[in-house]
């Protein structure tokens, strides 16, 4: 699955579909704000600031008979960085893929419970997953620019949505927001594949934010990059979180500690064990299992 698959699918979808998701009168902001958070079984608390933009309630995911997520409930505040950490197979990528229904593309995957985006359950029958993914962009472990020019990579989603007014300005702004503009402004017609790995990843981030999504999901976005490119991506994540909500899955606990506002710790069996402010998780977690995991005593 690549991002191009998603956007290609979206070619014929009317943009008004997207608006209907957030405009659903049954799910206004008040309801979201008043919803109490459940943070796994061993404590944690609700978001300290920011309106809740994503909320999962009793989310279970099965791959065939195997249960990949167990009764996950948490609230993600907007315009912040939320990190999801945990050992391999703990369900953290599964959870991420639930948010924009990427699990739809996996055979045998079955989702129970609710995953709300701006108050609307994204698994409701009337939600179009393609329109949803336009509001919730995704950046993957391996940079995956299209085999097109740098300019066309960024303009791609805008053209699909017929947002071609001031296209040059929009492309420039997205590249600036992705901290890539200065490095590519003189060669916008070169192929995106000519760029270094770190630049390619920033190009993918530019492509994701060009269409102004509410949320950007990142699945190990820096794990294939060298330390310098990694630190650039980390800086960038914190910058774009001023405008967008970032949810990042990472194996790198120090990365989660460095860049995130909130951290969710999943442990084996798809259980959300603790979800709290990042400094709390890394200085004094409530759960002994989380303590043992982050200090490296197991896992």
């Amino acid at each position, binding site marked *: 699955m690549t991002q191009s698959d998603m956007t290609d699918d979206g070619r014929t979808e009317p943009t008004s579909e997207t608006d209907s998701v957030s405009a659903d009168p049954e799910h206004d902001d008040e309801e979201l704000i008043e919803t109490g958070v459940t943070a796994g079984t061993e404590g944690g608390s609700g978001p300290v600031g920011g309106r809740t933009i994503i909320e999962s309630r009793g989310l279970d995911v099965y791959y065939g008979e195997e249960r990949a997520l167990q009764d996950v409930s948490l609230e993600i505040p907007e315009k912040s960085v939320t990190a999801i950490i945990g050992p391999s197979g703990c369900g953290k990528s599964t959870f991420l893929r639930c948010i924009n229904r990427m699990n739809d593309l996996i055979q045998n995957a079955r989702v129970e419970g609710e995953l709300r985006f701006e108050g609307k359950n994204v698994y409701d029958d009337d939600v179009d997953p393609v329109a949803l993914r336009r509001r919730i962009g995704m950046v993957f472990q391996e940079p995956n620019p299209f085999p097109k020019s740098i300019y066309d990579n960024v303009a791609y989603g805008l053209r699909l949505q017929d947002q071609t007014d001031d296209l040059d300005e929009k492309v420039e702004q997205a590249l600036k927001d992705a901290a890539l503009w200065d490095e590519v402004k003189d060669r916008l017609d070169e192929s995106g594949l000519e760029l270094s790995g770190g630049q390619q990843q920033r190009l993918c981030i530019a492509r994701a934010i060009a269409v102004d999504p509410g949320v950007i999901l990142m699945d190990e976005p820096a794990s294939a990059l060298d330390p310098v490119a990694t630190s650039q991506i980390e800086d960038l994540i914190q910058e774009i979180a001023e405008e967008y909500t970032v949810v990042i899955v990472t194996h790198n*606990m*120090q990365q989660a*500690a460095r860049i995130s506002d909130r951290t969710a710790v999943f442990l084996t069996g798809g259980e959300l064990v603790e979800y709290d402010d990042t400094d709390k998780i*890394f*200085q*004094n*977690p409530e759960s002994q299992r*989380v*303590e043992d995991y*982050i*200090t*490296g*005593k*197991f*896992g």
Partner: protein
Amino acid sequence: MARESYQEKLDQLQADVLYMSEVVLDRLRKGLDALDTKDEDLAWAVIDGDEEVNEMYLDLEKQCIDLLALQQPVASDLRFIAASFKIITDLERIGDLATNLGDYTLQAERDVFPEVDAQSIGRFTIEMVEEAMDAYANEDPEACRLVASRDDELDGKCERASQLVVRDLIETELDEGAEVETLLADVSRLLLTIRDLERVGDHAVNISARTLYMVENSDELIY
């Protein structure tokens, strides 16, 4: 258990901090003995021993920095290292104060105000340091609070001792000349001794405060 070498380094740090506290307490006991017996050799041993304490401090500081830089400790490990980093500073200062006792011994020519029991105050502060280090070794939050609560008692002892000195001084009738100078030096030294011992108690409280942070993530005793 994963990260065995890291765990060994944490254990080593704790063992070395406890060893440093033993050395410092030994200096403190000998400083008090020297003051009591006017044993100049012992006083010199305490003074010369400060170099060893300083070296231990630097070595432990490096252990802490290395752990922070190389192991990215978090949660209770982080608090243990952060607390130890602060505690070794307090131990080093207690070592300096023990050295002061050695200096006072060399300077003293006679006893003034024998009714002021600096030895008793000294023993009290040593107990406080011992209890604080036991709390650190045993990760005992109640022991931390107990040490902190004893500080008021120590402060009271020190204040009474100082007042005794000042009151006696006011009431003493002096001849002119050299006797005044000598008395002034002796009184200053005694007041400094009392102040230094009171500070040892403050450092014991600091050690307890950082230990409580380490054990319970609480800043209850930190100022």
